[in-house]
């Protein structure tokens, strides 16, 4: 099942009963955890790639939400605020763990196209649809590439293209502008296209 199909089955996040949550009502928290932990786990796991640590982050996220619920200003959806807590904790954990093996800023910049007088410097060779279709590990290739993106770009690809949150929601979760989300998403996709390029181009026949 694709992520899109799954989110259609799960449906949009329902806004929880804030008054009950503010009162510390266990049932209300149980409904919140039941409703949101699968979606939140997928985001956190995609950032960290570590199941046990992702579970710890989920627990810590709900605990912090409980402890800080009075600071929720109702300027965004409650779930957006909740996800922001989880994403921040996951990014903090990733930085501490030194699991990051992402590209440096300069290597990332080199994956952006070069132009001379506004035109492509190098010709763009077509991809081979057959080669893409036959590449059974194409998702592995892609996800290794996503893992190499600098962390802020990777998070935006996860939130926008995989989990399909809106630009506005992502902007609120990451506390950046909608314009910054759009620019970083575009640059991330361009970098991923470049990393996939050698795997999917037509292969030259070797000379006899």
């Amino acid at each position: 099942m694709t992520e899109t199909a799954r989110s259609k089955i799960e449906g949009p996040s329902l806004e929880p009963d804030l008054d009950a949550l503010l009162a510390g009502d266990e049932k209300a928290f149980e409904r919140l955890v039941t409703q949101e932990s699968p979606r939140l786990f997928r985001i956190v796991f995609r950032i960290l790639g570590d199941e046990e640590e992702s579970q710890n982050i989920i627990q810590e996220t709900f605990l912090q939400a409980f402890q800080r619920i009075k600071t929720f200003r109702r300027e965004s959806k409650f779930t957006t605020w909740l996800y922001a807590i989880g994403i921040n904790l996951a990014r903090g954990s990733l930085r501490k763990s030194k699991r990051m093996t992402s590209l440096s800023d300069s290597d990332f910049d080199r994956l952006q196209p070069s132009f001379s007088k506004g035109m492509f410097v190098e010709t763009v060779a077509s991809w081979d649809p057959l080669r893409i279709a036959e590449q059974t590990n194409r998702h592995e290739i892609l996800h290794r590439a996503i893992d190499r993106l600098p962390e802020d770009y990777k998070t935006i690809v996860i939130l926008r293209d995989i989990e399909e949150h809106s630009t506005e929601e992502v902007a609120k979760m990451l506390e950046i502008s909608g314009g910054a989300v759009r620019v970083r998403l575009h640059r991330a996709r361009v970098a991923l296209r470049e990393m996939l390029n050698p795997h999917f181009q037509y292969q030259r026949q070797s000379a006899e």
Partner: protein
Amino acid sequence: MNVVYTIKTLLGLAPNCKKVTSFLADYVEGTLPRKVSQQFDEHLGMCKCCGPYFDQYRTTIDLIKEGREVKLPAELVEHTMTFLRNNANLSR
């Protein structure tokens, strides 16, 4: 790209490759103004680089969206609720 169109891009009368690639995300989302979108289509039809580049950009997005399954741990909700009961002052 034919000579007339190349001159138009150099004179700024038609978008060049750099401009077109900066439109890609908005084009895919269908949020470009109609006139700009028509200029984009004209460029894609003329340019031997931007046509395949755009196809590859769209294929990349499709592959990202096909996604990879994330298996949820067993008892994710139960473990989280146990943690909350032990660490938060929930009222029954």
